[in-house]
């Protein structure tokens, strides 16, 4: 039982990271029909940028973190939309999706060639001790990751539902034509979702890299699981992406512990297939009809 609880908490921690990435995924989909297959690399790169700033500029870690996140949000929030999404979306969803696949490869290989092919230690802002509670060893780092991620998601949910700007963002996502007619700055709202997506990815990167280490290939699994989490939870709901992330994280952790470490990656994929067959709109998603 003690072992199970430890695996459960570890799964919730990685699940919280998947949820951050999955929420960003759903946000940019809702506002701009962008399926970002580079989402995993978006979580991989901020940690590399931060370490590069420490290594090449000699900046203190906290300053490198602030600058690295700011640079990442500028390049992969604003820049991603201007340089890749805006020109490609005119040609349809599929060309844009393929462009993001190309971006993923460029980001991964760029991190390998430009920084390092080896996994690098990444310092943690969170406590790393382990405590024993009723015979169960609990990693404070895992608990802190869950709390920080949930606070970020809660803050985002508050912003989207309780502020005028957040509701304008929802309006721009739900019906951009009507939003435009009402004077809502639709283009600015869409850009805001890209900036939020980059911010969430950067947060996920800073949280997960002390555990996974900073490595160019980290995005492969994170991207895949974030995608699965978004579909399992419901591609059009923030709470769905949160639930999907936590479910995928826990299933992955328990599968590694109790089924097989070799086949752990397959278990969330099986879940994905089941959801697509049984409830294609996802556990919390709403049915959508689109004219093509």
């Amino acid at each position: 039982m003690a072992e199970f609880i430890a695996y459960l908490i570890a799964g919730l921690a990685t699940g919280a990271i998947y949820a951050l990435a999955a929420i960003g995924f759903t946000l940019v989909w809702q506002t701009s029909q962008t399926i970002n297959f580079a989402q995993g690399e978006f979580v991989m790169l901020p940690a590399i940028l931060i370490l590069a700033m420490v290594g090449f500029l000699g900046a203190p870690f906290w300053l490198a973190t602030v600058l690295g996140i700011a640079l990442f949000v500028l390049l992969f929030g604003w820049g991603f939309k201007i340089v890749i999404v805006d020109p490609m979306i005119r040609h349809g969803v599929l060309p844009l999706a393929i462009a993001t696949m190309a971006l993923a490869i460029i980001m991964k290989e760029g991190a390998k060639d430009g920084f390092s092919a080896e996994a690098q230690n990444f310092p943690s802002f969170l406590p790393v001790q382990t405590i024993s509670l009723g015979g169960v060893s609990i990693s404070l780092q895992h608990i802190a990751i869950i709390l920080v991620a949930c606070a970020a998601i809660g803050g985002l949910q508050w912003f989207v539902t309780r502020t005028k700007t957040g509701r304008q963002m929802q309006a721009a996502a739900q019906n951009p034509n009507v939003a435009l007619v009402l004077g809502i700055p639709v283009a600015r709202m869409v850009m805001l979702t890209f900036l939020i997506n980059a911010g969430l990815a950067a947060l996920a990167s800073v949280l997960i890299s002390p555990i996974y280490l900073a490595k160019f290939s980290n995005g492969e699994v994170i991207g895949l699981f974030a995608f699965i989490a978004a579909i399992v939870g419901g591609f059009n709901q923030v709470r769905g992406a949160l639930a999907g992330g936590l479910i995928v994280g826990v299933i992955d952790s328990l599968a590694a512990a109790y089924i097989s470490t070799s086949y752990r990656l397959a278990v969330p994929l099986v879940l994905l297939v089941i959801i697509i067959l049984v409830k294609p709109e996802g556990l919390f998603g709403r049915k959508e009809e689109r004219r093509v």
Partner: protein
Amino acid sequence: MDNPILELDEVVGGYGRITILHGTSFRVRRGAIITIIGPNGAGKSTVFKAIFGLLNLSSGTIRFNGTDITGWSPRRLLEAGIVYVPQGRNIFPELSVRHNLEFGAVAAGPDITDMPARIEAALDRFPSLRQKADQQASTLSGGQQKQLEIMRGLLLDPKLILIDEPSIGLSPLLVQETFGILTDLRNRGVTILMVEQNARSALEMSDEGLVLELGRTRMQGPAREILHDPRVAQLFLGGAMAEVE
């Protein structure tokens, strides 16, 4: 016509390479209800998009209160006093009725300080909306949704309302109710330019009619004359109207 509120002068525009408006010109009298009628593809809805800055025009001029507004953004037009209620359902179903209503105030300038009171007054005017103010807008009936859209458009005290097919999908009773709201607005000095398939009912409550065909103004005059013009009945209003004639 002296001092018209809106003037279109030789407006040419369309979608991509397809031209819909082939030099559309007309003037809209201040404080009147004007209904635009015409067969499918005449460019009725496209005219509204052209006025509201949602269409790239290749030539022509649009003036509002004597000011050239050609190519202005929707937000700037809202600030100037024009509101556009497009065809179909224009609410955000997952947001509350109150939050939907608040979107009517997005373009409010800093000089409008009584917006909360205006929102409350709008809800007071329609008790059925007040009752559901904090529920999702998807719970409203079709008629209530149209009322919400009109109320939302009135928050900025517009001088001109462009309303496209307000009766679509509504029962005859709700159509009369909606037309009643528009008449009431006209009586308070608001100018209403309307596109309506339900041509007979719309012309009966309008001051003027405007016939559009192939992106050009074919006829404009008092609504009663348009309604009873045999050419109009023949050309645009279908067999039933022709038989009446």
